[in-house]
């Protein structure tokens, strides 16, 4: 008896006050419906009016989109000028936003996005919502991990990722207790060397509807360089001309050119944790150019900065995981690399106060 009254009061107080002054808790949390069930009409009059308002707004926006598309068509036909390209770009942005705002208030769209069902990335509204979610939830984590572990100054200049890259090495690739979001590990997580011998599935959420070509590279910047007393980079994987779009999210080797095949990560014993970084770089001309990478010019020692500057790549997405030596790494050296396993350690400590014979150094001399 009091329940419908409460609902109606909630509606009225919404209209009276600008901010929510009461807590609303959803009772049914676990029951995930398989399909969207539209709320019944006639129960809450405010809801019925709300639907009318939303429908009117949608109609207005669709009409606006028609006008903008007409002006866009005219602009494209018009004579080329300096301001023309920017005008076209801004107009396309406006059209995209209007397409998104026209449908974002639809309760069915909201349900679909929340439950990740029938999320068609070819629709502007879902691209918009996913973009917002990425910026709000995933991007801060990536930025924080990359700056904290110095991936950006070491490998690349600092940038803002525009594309979401996620790796899947299969179950059990992370030690127990690692945070897993949406089935993928968080950027910067530790992975087990035994589980990264096989190449991962790369899932890319790019927010552009058109197809663009990307270059994918897996770099280890922490391989010790004993001669120069520093660290050197090692390219574990390099694939060029990967076609990706909002609807094409998986990396498939059939459509792309594998320049360097996948080499299992093998952090040697005695070194600190290695940051294996997967970088997604857009190729030149807005991702429309295809690259010819001849294997003679590229080696596993090529640095990422050199690669990007030579082929005019613009890094758009980044993710990385960490690994430290394990017994499985010895196995990898023996079976996969067929090399002797190096063991690194610190230089022996030299006591400044003792001479070569081990005696205390004399402070004074007999004159």
């Amino acid at each position, binding site marked *: 008896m009091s329940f419908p009254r409460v*609902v109606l*009061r909630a509606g009225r107080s919404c*209209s009276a006050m600008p901010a929510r002054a*009461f807590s*609303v*808790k959803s009772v049914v949390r676990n029951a995930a419906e398989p399909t969207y069930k539209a709320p019944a009409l006639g129960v*809450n009059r405010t809801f019925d009016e*709300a639907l009318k308002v939303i429908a009117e*707004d949608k109609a207005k926006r669709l009409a606006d989109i028609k006008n903008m598309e007409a002006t866009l068509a005219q602009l494209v036909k018009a004579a080329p000028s300096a301001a023309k390209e920017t005008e076209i770009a801004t107009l396309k942005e406006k059209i995209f936003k209007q397409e998104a705002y026209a449908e974002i208030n639809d*309760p069915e769209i909201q349900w679909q996005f929340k439950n990740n069902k029938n999320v068609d990335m070819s629709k502007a509204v879902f691209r918009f919502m996913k973009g917002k979610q990425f910026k709000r939830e995933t991007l801060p984590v990536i930025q924080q991990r990359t700056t904290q572990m110095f991936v950006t100054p070491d490998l690349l200049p600092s940038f803002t990722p525009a594309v979401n890259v996620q790796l899947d090495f299969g179950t059990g690739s992370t030690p127990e207790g690692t945070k897993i979001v949406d089935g993928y590990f968080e950027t910067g997580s530790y992975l087990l060397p035994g589980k990264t011998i096989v190449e991962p599935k790369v899932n890319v959420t790019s927010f552009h509807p058109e197809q663009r070509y990307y270059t994918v590279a897996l770099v280890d910047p922490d391989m010790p360089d004993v001669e120069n007393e520093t660290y050197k980079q090692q390219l574990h994987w390099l694939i060029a001309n990967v076609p990706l779009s909002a609807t094409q999210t998986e990396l498939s080797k059939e459509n792309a050119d594998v320049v360097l095949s996948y080499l299992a990560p093998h952090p040697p014993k005695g070194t600190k944790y290695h940051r294996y970084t997967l970088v997604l770089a857009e190729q030149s001309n807005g991702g429309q150019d295809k690259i010819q990478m001849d294997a003679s010019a590229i080696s596993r020692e090529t640095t990422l900065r050199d690669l990007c500057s030579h082929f005019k790549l613009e890094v758009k997405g980044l993710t990385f995981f960490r690994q430290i030596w394990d017994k499985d790494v010895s196995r990898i050296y023996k079976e996969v690399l067929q090399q002797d396993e190096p063991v690194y350690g610190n230089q022996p400590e030299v006591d400044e106060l003792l001479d070569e014979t081990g005696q205390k150094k004399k402070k004074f001399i007999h004159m």
Partner: protein
Amino acid sequence: MSSPFARTALKAANLMRAGAPSTPKKGGGTSLNGEPRNDLIKKVLFDAPPRPPVRFSSEDMTRHETIERAWKLVRQQQKQAQEEGLAKKFEMMRKANAELEATSSQLFKHSQTKERHAVFPRQLRTLTDTPPKQVWNYREPAATPAPKA
């Protein structure tokens, strides 16, 4: 009343009307000179049961969110209409000023500037609590005769 605080206010009023003496004093010594006000306040705050949280089913939750979105849209549209109205008024004002500037530069300058040293009329009669002995001088004529149309 549509305020969510209505229920608490009602309960508080009822408790205050019932009076303090029936329940034992809390923490003793809070009533000064026999005044039960602090006890009453404590009773209202802690004895009144808290309002239960509003629980919505998922269907009602969808309705609630849709209503919130639609209301936001309405306010957006109202604000947009207001801004457009203001913009139109500003544009008309700007055009009028431009026309005046083209017509007469002296009049335009006079319209755009304000008397910087303007002061209230010093001939004004001082305001008093009570009226003067002579409210109006009927013998002498008015200072400024009415202009002939």
